[in-house]
């Protein structure tokens, strides 16, 4: 596939062309949805690499529920980005939540506290980063919303509360928020609200689905992006393209 063409992910997220002037899009809520057959973890890796490019000063706050730091470090190193160095440079904050558990199953207060403390850490980091000089976009990434729900003892309402607070950072600091969730585990009607709520609040929805024709050796799936910017609704569009998975490099 032609790599010189700006790929649609970047078109939607990073740059917004108004007339001929390229302006940085600030504060977008991106919801990435995938399924068992086609994992969309590569979208997170792509955004991570994109934000940590040497020519920008953007910061990523990464909240990991699915994989440890070493996992992401290995993948990003293959993509030409050293996370350990970025961590030292204060451009990459990795919050390891793999062990986050809310000890008390019944006590509502205790359940709140785990996510409340996490939110406190995020907001503190965002406050510090935004007080530093220079313009930068702070991106908050959550690598698995469904595992966060597991950590919150299955209470999707608490997860939504937490995410709502993360969204409020968009208004004040212009933060972007990228979340990954699995669509197929919410297929029963009772649990649909979590994924629907996220979609209602999203500016961009990215879905990874298997091809209708089955899996091929080089083409792993198709992606669908629904982009409905909330205030300037000029970018309402939905496009489809295929992504090629030539490990370790991802092309579109």
């Amino acid at each position, binding site marked *: 596939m032609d790599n010189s063409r700006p790929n649609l992910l970047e078109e939607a997220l990073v740059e917004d062309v108004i007339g001929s002037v390229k302006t940085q899009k600030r504060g977008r809520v991106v919801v990435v949805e995938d399924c068992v057959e086609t994992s969309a973890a590569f979208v997170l890796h792509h955004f991570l690499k994109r934000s940590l490019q040497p020519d920008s000063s953007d910061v990523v706050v990464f909240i990991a529920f699915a994989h440890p730091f070493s996992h992401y470090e290995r993948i990003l190193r293959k993509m030409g980005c050293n996370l350990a160095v970025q961590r030292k440079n204060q451009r990459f904050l990795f919050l390891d939540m793999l062990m986050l558990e809310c000890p008390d199953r019944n006590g509502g207060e205790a359940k*709140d506290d785990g996510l*409340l403390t996490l*939110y*406190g*850490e995020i*907001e*503190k980091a965002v*406050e510090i980063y935004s007080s530093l000089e220079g313009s930068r976009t702070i991106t908050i990434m959550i690598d698995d919303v469904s595992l966060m729900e597991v950590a919150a003892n299955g209470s999707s*309402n608490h997860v*939504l*509360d937490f995410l*709502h*607070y993360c969204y*409020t950072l968009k*208004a*004040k600091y212009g933060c972007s928020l990228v979340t990954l969730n699995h*669509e197929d585990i919410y297929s029963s009607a009772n649990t*649909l*609200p979590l994924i*629907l*709520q996220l*979609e*209602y*609040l999203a500016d961009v929805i990215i*879905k990874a*689905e298997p091809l*209708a024709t089955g899996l091929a050796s080089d083409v792993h799936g*198709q992606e*669908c992006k*629904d982009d*409905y910017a*909330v*205030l*300037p*609704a*000029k970018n*309402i*569009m*939905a*496009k*489809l393209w295929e992504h090629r998975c030539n490990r370790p490099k991802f092309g579109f």
Partner: protein
Amino acid sequence: MAETISRALRDGAFEGEHAPALSIKDTIHTPLGSFVFNHILTQLTSNILAGKSQSRGVVLVALTRPPSFYAELLKNKGFDISLSSKWLRVLDCYSDPLGWKNKLMERGTVRNPYEETLLKTSLCKNLKELDKVLSSIVELGKEIVEEGKGRFAVAIDSVSEILRHSSLPSVARILSHLRSHDQVSCIFCLLHVDLHEAKVAATLEYLSTMHADVEPIVQRTNGQRSASEDLPMVEQCFKRGKFHVRFKRRNGRVRVMREELYVEGSSIKFKEISSEDGMTAQSLVPKVQFNLELSEKERLDRAKVVLPFEHQGTGRPIQIYDGRKSLNESEIEQQQASVEKPQTTEDSGRGEIIYFRDSDDEMPDSDEDPDDDLDI
């Protein structure tokens, strides 16, 4: 039609009656409900500023968008934000609905978590206590009308968000309390229907006098969530939608209206349902072997048919045909036929119903009373 809604909200409540309420509903297939909400809000605001509306100001309960979003929206529509304190109060349930930021500030984790805005806002730190929310709304409204007899409008930007924290009965209670409050002029709110059970939408419909449904242009038959199959359609659904409004009028009648809405720039526009869509709908009807519609000639012929009893009282003696011809009738007819011959040629274009009585056993088709129980 959107004007009709705006007019109803502008005119407000009648003395001793509940305030008119509008509920806007949408689904994820066509998530344009917030556009409609913003449209109604700006329409009402311009009516208030022009002094045309019953309400003197709006209390906006912001749950899914920050107050700064509304400041930006009103500014883009050309309203002077610096004077907004005269006609707008925002109850900010967005920034800190559960008091987390307050807690973090007390613990010293963060310094100043709240966003500053030009609008006059009041912060709600516990959305779970709906009674406090209700009294804050009323207090903010009273600030606008300044203890006079004036009324204010209430706008809730998402009932779905309140329902996440509270039960349906308690939400219904505050809505109905607001409607019956003697200083509330009108109330409108948005609901994302697919996030809730069917009873939620039904409850809200009972509590409102107008419902506006934003529906997809074409309903998906299989209810699939997978979008990639029909991307052009998904794209259309994000741009255009059907706007279906039901008004419950004061005399008890229900008026239903349909329009099409489409996104243009950062706002929406309404237009009549285009004939183009009508044509597509017609062409979608499966091909059948018999005619579903009449040809032009058949239509004309049908229009000419004089229905039985239609000629009654037009000067002629009333004749009720019961399938039999009595002797003197046929005599009269013969006489008439000779006299009115020119007229019959004139009437030759007129259609008639030809009816043959099968047998004498058949009941005569007339208004005589076979079992003598009518009081004619």
